[in-house]
């Protein structure tokens, strides 16, 4: 018996077909499509009022507050960011790359009746001016499930860990 299977015998892994997990995956996919369509107003509505959206630099830290991040957005900053992406003043957003992202390799981290923490992989291709950039990242979503059904499910925390977060990446006119 390998170590991995021994561990599995102790803690039964949660299946992605678990109804709560399936709801979280549906939300993550809806979110991904809204971002690819640059529908930032509806994207922001997917977050809880206390929700955090983080793109860290340091791959090892969870103390985002005390470290420099690429993005560290609470509701106020997200609102400002959506304004920036949509108001038409930001030349990077006006002429943004078109993106297509695939989110997969879902692994449920924890599941309760009210919350799912879900890890996944995101591969995003951004096309602009005859150039395709690859943005690969590990995602973690903390999804708060609504008692009223899937339409009320919200993202309480999204962390995007780029594989090259400590290297130089292009300046972006879109969101991860």
């Amino acid at each position, binding site marked *: 018996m390998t170590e991995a299977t021994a561990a599995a015998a102790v803690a039964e892994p949660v299946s992605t077909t678990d109804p709560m997990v399936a709801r979280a995956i549906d939300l993550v996919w809806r979110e991904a499509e809204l971002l690819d369509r640059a529908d930032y107003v509806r994207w922001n509505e997917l977050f809880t009022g206390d929700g955090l959206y983080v793109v860290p*630099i340091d791959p090892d830290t969870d103390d985002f507050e005390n470290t*420099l991040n690429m993005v560290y957005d609470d509701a106020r900053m997200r609102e400002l960011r959506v304004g920036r992406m949509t108001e038409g003043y*930001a*030349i990077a*957003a006006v002429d943004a790359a078109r993106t297509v992202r695939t989110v997969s390799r879902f692994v449920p981290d924890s599941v309760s009746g009210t919350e799912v923490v879900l890890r996944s992989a995101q591969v995003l291709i951004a096309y602009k001016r005859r150039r395709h950039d690859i943005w690969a990242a590990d995602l973690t979503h903390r999804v708060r499930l609504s008692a009223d059904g899937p339409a009320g499910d919200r993202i309480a925390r999204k962390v995007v860990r780029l594989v090259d977060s*400590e290297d*130089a*990446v292009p*300046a972006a006119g879109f969101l991860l």
Partner: protein
Amino acid sequence: MNQYSDDTAPADLVAGDHVAGRLYTDPDIFEREMTAIFESTWVWVAHESELATPGSFKSTHVGRQPVIVTRDRKNNLHTMLNRCRHRGASVCEKPQGRANGFTCPYHAWSYGLDGTLRGIPYPDGYEGVVEKRELSLRKLRTESYGGMVFATLDEDVEPLADFLGDAKLWIDRFMKQGGGYPIKVLGKHQFRFKGNWKIQLENTTDGYHFPIVHRSWMASVDAETADMMSFMTDPEAITHDLGHGHSVMQMVPGHADLDVDDGSEPLQGRFDELAAELAKSFSDAEVRRLLRAMHGTGFNLNLFPNVAMSSAFFRVLRPVAVDETVIEHIAIGPDGPSELDPLNRERLRIHEHFQGPFGFGTPDDAEGWDRVQRGARAEPAMPILVNRGSAREKTSAEGWPTSHVTDETGMRAAYNQWKRMMRDD
């Protein structure tokens, strides 16, 4: 208008208030810049806080050459080529850290923090062949001023203090944003753009672009911060040519010397909560001094060729290719007791708001630069204009050519230095 022929000498492509577009697009000019500029003058490599203790190191570049900067056990700073003397492998691939020395992964030649070759495995094959003391890592001259560490591949270049010249005064002033404490690096953003390094060099002394390119950022900040950066029609906001290619652009002249405070300026309302928190540990005067410096100093000091001390951060450029440049935006804050942590957290948030690949400022800058690189390919012999304000440029009491902050005095300063360094003679 086509003033430059294909065989115009590089130095003649710069004529005071205009330069040839070819300066951004010609690979031969880029190659010459790497030797005539980046391997011939002082290039910024680190802030001393990044090498705070003996045994700390940082990997970076001087021009295109990879280097390691270290602090040895005797507290001396060293800069060395990151290249084993045996077969050329890099001896360090970590961006920063602590070490006792560096061991090449290929044949395990090991070097001390000062670059001295310490050990060669199975040394019998080298008996009568090599002298270990002649095979230290190649060292670069390393000098620092005000915590800013520079290195050069040219052993005979003037002392750093002479090269910085009048910029030293502004380095001293810049560091006052520590509010009585030394400055430390808090973190850094890195991004790359498909454009020539000089487009970025110009940008830090380009007041003219600010309300246009950064309209989105201006719209997202509080009214007091937006007002602070409304320097377009302020006659007091001026740029000085400091010599040697260096210049300083004063956007907020009242914050040029943060020690000068008549007490009349109200602190920004956005910092009320932070002020209350700091007041538990610091006197009213200390809190005021720290909070007046939250946005840094009121100027951008542009040091030729690769570093700017820009308001509240360092901007470092690294040329990669004629049409590719990597930029670092290094966040800084006061290095003091843990009671300053709330203040440094706020400084991190301010930095994130503007800087970095997802900031509210940087991506718009990068888009502008990308467009310059693309447009300059259209007839690269046509001039790029850096003549704004040349007719209203005066000499200040200090002897510095001076014009309005939106004028291109700082760019002319940089290109004059470029011209001097790119001459054949």
